[in-house]
């Protein structure tokens, strides 16, 4: 079956010739009309539209956005904050970068609608430190929006006021974790908080109720406020509504970003047709479908079981290429849709080298708060690095797995899972390659083999 056409909702204007990030261009293209419409409605109506839409968060966890909003403690009498997670730091993910740099007002409009719907008077955009230009663009966009009364005091004459400030991170991956991000915004080390009791919806920024939403999610909110929750829920597939932006990187002919209705495209269509297939003379070997912490998948694998199709349960028997790229299908086959970052590896890659690269990342980024993660991520890095650069032993795969198995579930935040899933899945799927590594190392490297760690 040929791949469906892209459906660009969030990326509608990305790379459009002549489209600029200033407010005039945005307004010329119908910008801020949805905000004008929204502030005439009751805030609860907008929350209801988002609930009806079935929108799931685009940052990684896929948590329903409307549910997140409805968990807010609205009775505490404390101010409610919105924190926009623009920390985009999951390796393999690069969608928010383009929204921020090319279409910042789409985000600002989504933020203002979200703030209005949830009675938020103060929003912060937490942007990763490595986007200095993005931070400047957003600051300019906020000033423009303020000058036209789309943000700031008495928005559009409604009596409702809300400010937005940009807050820059400083190079720490853990700040993408929502409670770590909040700690960072409070001026501290970004040590994630334990839940319960520190659910942001109740005890978030400054111990006040807080919504933390991803950049792309808020752009979807703008679209939902425009077309309505019902119409949005018709896009994509049930429980996986709307569009999804896939960020494809690694060994394909045409890496890049592609927006499709969620669940309407399979992994095979995405990689073989949309991205042009493997590089000349190579074969696909493995793919990480949702950012580097998602479990790796192996080409040649088959997945069988029963799945829900409407009200019925049906059998499925999929090759990896047949798997629809939605949250539920990827979870069913033991991985995740995560942040939409699809990293492709071909047969030039030795999986031990690839894992060693990933392990170096997680060892560098562990915040150090919980012992299993701080020590475990470091030892996984040391072991895999020794395999590549020092002596490799056939039993090292099992050793790595034994370390990983002692981290997940024993830490305050999900970083514990994020750092152990790659090791666990690489060894589960490519265990033979780990056993054979000591011998493989002695063989001459084939042409085009790159150093990965």
């Amino acid at each position, binding site marked *: 079956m040929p791949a469906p056409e892209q459906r660009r909702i969030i990326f509608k204007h990305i790379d459009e010739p002549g489209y600029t990030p200033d407010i005039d261009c945005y307004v010329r293209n119908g910008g801020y009309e949805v905000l004008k419409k929204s502030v005439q409605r009751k805030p609860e109506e907008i929350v209801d539209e988002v609930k009806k839409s079935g929108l799931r968060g685009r940052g990684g966890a896929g948590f329903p956005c409307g549910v997140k909003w409805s968990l807010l403690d609205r009775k505490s009498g404390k101010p409610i904050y919105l924190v926009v997670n623009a920390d985009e730091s999951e390796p393999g993910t690069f969608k928010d970068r383009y929204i921020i740099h090319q279409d910042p007002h789409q985000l600002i409009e989504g933020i203002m609608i979200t703030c209005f719907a949830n009675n938020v008077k103060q929003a912060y955009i937490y942007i990763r430190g490595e986007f200095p230009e993005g931070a400047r663009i957003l600051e300019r966009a906020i000033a423009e929006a303020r000058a036209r009364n789309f943000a700031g005091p008495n928005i559009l004459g409604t009596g409702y006021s809300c400010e937005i400030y940009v807050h820059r991170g400083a190079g720490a991956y853990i700040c993408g974790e929502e409670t770590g991000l909040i700690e960072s915004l409070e001026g501290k*080390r970004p040590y994630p908080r334990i839940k319960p009791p520190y659910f942001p919806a109740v005890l978030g920024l400054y111990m006040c109720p807080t919504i933390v939403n991803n950049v792309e999610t808020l752009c979807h909110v703008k679209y939902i406020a425009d077309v309505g929750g019902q119409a949005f829920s018709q896009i994509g597939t049930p429980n996986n509504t709307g569009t999804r932006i896939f960020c494809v990187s690694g060994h394909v002919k045409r890496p890049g970003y592609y927006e499709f209705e969620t669940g309407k495209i399979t992994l095979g269509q995405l990689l073989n047709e949309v991205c042009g297939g493997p590089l000349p003379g190579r074969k696909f070997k493995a793919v990480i479908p949702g950012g580097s912490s998602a479990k790796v998948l192996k080409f040649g694998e088959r997945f069988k079981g029963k799945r829900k199709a409407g009200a019925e349960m049906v059998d499925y028997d999929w090759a990896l290429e047949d798997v629809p790229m939605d949250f539920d299908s990827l979870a069913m086959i033991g991985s995740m849709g995560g942040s939409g970052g699809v990293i492709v590896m071909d047969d030039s890659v030795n999986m031990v080298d690839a894992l060693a690269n990933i392990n170096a990342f997680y060892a560098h980024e562990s915040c150090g708060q919980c012992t299993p993660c701080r020590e475990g991520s470091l030892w996984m890095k040391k072991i895999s690095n020794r395999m590549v650069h020092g002596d490799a032993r056939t039993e090292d795969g099992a050793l790595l797995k034994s370390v990983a198995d002692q981290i997940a579930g024993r830490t305050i935040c999900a970083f514990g899972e994020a750092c152990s899933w790659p090791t666990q899945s690489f060894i589960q799927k490519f265990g033979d390659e780990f056993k054979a590594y000591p011998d493989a190392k002695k063989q001459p490297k084939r042409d085009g083999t790159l150093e990965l760690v």
Partner: protein
Amino acid sequence: MDLKPETFARIEEVITHYPTKRSAVLPLLHLIQEDAGYISDSAMEWVAQKLELQPINVYEVVTFYPMFRRKPIGRRHIKVCRTLSCALMGGYRTCEEFKKEFNTGLNQISPDGEVTIEFVECLASCGTAPVVMVDDVLHEKVDCAKAREIAAQIKRKAEGQKG
């Protein structure tokens, strides 16, 4: 503190963004580092005093976040992405090429004082790997040839400034 008048003005302004002064630690450190090139011990003490904190509260932040540095670096900062997607497309080679061009190792000032090369984690531009940031500017698809071009540009600019 020896900073430009506009840096002081921006410091005063940014503190007003937050209900608690402590939240301004990261913005202040960014502003100081952009102005002074690095964060000295006396700068940390100054920030602590400014925000009514203990110096340890600033020190623990500076030592945690990779982007803050406590020593000066070369005039230009080259950050090569090390993480998987870039490595799969030759990021390690790109990094080696820069080291060779400037005759230097990682995290040190090159002999000509021109650059400091850092091998950083994911810069979130994996679709155009390998990527490199020179100061605030992102360069995409930087293979060895492009790395040499960028190095030549930096060197030409340095020559121009001397002459």
